[in-house]
């Protein structure tokens, strides 16, 4: 339903995303794009929302270029795809009570829908908050109002950019359960942009790992997280804090990407001479999994 077709994106002459392809559809399990600050993951989300003009490649909705949708196509797109940004609360009209904001979204929906109270309860908020204006809510409450508002439209697909990283873990767990339930019951499609591997596991079937604007590993979540093929995926996985485990990081996690050859070689514990001269291509490793590493699959 929503696709990146060999997208290259940038601002001015600066390229931040190189040749990225991915597909998101309802009834297909969620799709995650994982990367750190500056990896280009948010720019990909913005391109799929029609907010960034591609330098090369296309952002597609139902096979049609999002930048060139006709009126009817644009209306279908808006009804089907809803964004939730990290600081989504900023997008709420400060003059409107949150109940009115959600009602406005409910009117875009065809047929019977839930009530404002049901939508608020669904994201774990007291329905009594409907009468408040956004500035009287906490950041976490506002973010949940934004998610309730996005769901009010009854979208086929949500584009979520770090939707829970400003929330308490308990609220995060509740929002993730809500999204997983909607995915399972109604086939809601999810594109989840995040830096946190741990939130991906319960929500997504497919993951694309992004480093310096390039996909370095992609494939089924179980395979990619279970036995990472790329050393960057491995570093991300090991860095996730676990109860009762103390992690001693190796290497330089904030070294800037290398400008030539493999961009990850500046941090990579496995780098060899070839990595400095020859950028690795994204190639099949096993099954549906692909990785861009000259030493993919070697024991780390």
């Amino acid at each position, binding site marked *: 339903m929503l696709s990146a077709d060999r997208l290259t994106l940038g601002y001015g002459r600066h390229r931040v995303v190189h040749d990225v392809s991915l597909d998101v559809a309802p009834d297909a399990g969620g799709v995650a794009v994982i990367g*750190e*600050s500056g990896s280009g993951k948010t720019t990909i989300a913005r391109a799929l929302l029609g907010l960034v003009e591609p330098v090369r490649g296309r952002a597609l909705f139902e096979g049609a270029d999002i930048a060139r949708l006709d009126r009817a196509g644009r209306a279908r797109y808006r009804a089907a795809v809803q964004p939730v940004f990290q600081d989504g609360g900023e997008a709420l009209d400060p003059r409107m009570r949150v109940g009115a904001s959600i009602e406005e979204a409910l009117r875009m929906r065809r047929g019977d829908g839930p009530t404002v109270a049901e939508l608020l309860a669904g994201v774990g908020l007291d329905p009594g908050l409907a009468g408040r204006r956004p500035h009287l809510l*906490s*950041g*976490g409450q506002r973010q949940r109002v934004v998610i309730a508002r996005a769901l009010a439209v009854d979208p086929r697909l949500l584009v979520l950019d770090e939707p829970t990283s400003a929330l*308490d*873990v*308990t*609220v*995060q*767990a509740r929002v*993730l359960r809500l999204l997983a339930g909607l995915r399972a019951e109604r086939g809601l499609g999810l594109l989840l942009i995040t*830096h*946190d*591997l*741990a*939130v991906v*596991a*319960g929500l997504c079937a497919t993951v694309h790992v992004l480093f310096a604007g390039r996909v370095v590993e992609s494939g089924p979540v179980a395979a990619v*997280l279970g036995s990472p093929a790329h050393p960057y995926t491995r*570093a*991300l*996985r*090991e*860095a*996730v*804090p*676990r*109860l*009762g*485990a*103390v*992690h*001693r*990081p190796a290497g330089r*996690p*904030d070294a800037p990407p290398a400008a030539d050859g493999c961009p990850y070689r500046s941090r990579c514990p496995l780098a060899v001479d070839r990595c400095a001269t020859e950028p690795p291509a994204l190639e099949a490793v096993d099954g549906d999994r692909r990785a861009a590493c000259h030493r993919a699959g070697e024991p780390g």
Partner: protein
Amino acid sequence: MSPLITIEDLRVRAGDRLLVALDALEVGPGECVALVGESGSGKTTVLNAMLGLTGGLRVSGRVVVGGVDVVGADERALGRVRGSAAALISQSPQDSLNPTMRLGTLLRRVLARHGVRGAEARERTADALRSVLLDPGLLRRYPHQVSGGQAQRFAIATAVALRAGVLLADEPTSALDVTVQASVLDLLARLRREQGVALVFVSHDLAVVSGIADRVVVLRDGRVVEAGPAAGVLGAPASAYTRELLDAVPTIGK
């Protein structure tokens, strides 16, 4: 050894509303105590009370930091506590750095304010940067020219240069990428081991806490729900609320 921080019968009120009730807490040299809870639990208020950063709130009880009871202390006494006895490490240190000054200038001024100048200041700066693994070239940069991880290391280096006995860390890694978070947590653990720095660590994330804390205090609505050694509180929680926090930790295997 005598504790670096002693809290007795701390009550913080906004008007008539009781925000925090903490009967007793001690933090010894090299110890890490985690204050855990959700937004609104009072964990940051307790941390702020340790530095007398409670303007507009009514505070009673005793909060002794580096030998000074900060409850009712005047600004001069508080100035001696802040930075030299206990230093605050915030969630986004970049926001609290003057954007028009290079990091080197900022650090020099902080040290001068605490009476450390000249060769002594240069020596402490070099040692502190080395202990947090920052390149001295970073001192020529402005705050917006460094990454979040570098800014956090710089904030920790400032505390080290001031010889702060306790770091008061308020969600110090929750704005960082996971790989950078792991390296900052490792740095804090190393400072405890090698320099005996004590740590009060405020977080809502029990997985992060479990890797660093000796003792855990679980707060809810300003009251202590459960407190004790980290292994006990996290391994066999006595309260339903602690279990709820534990269950919320996302795991890859689940």
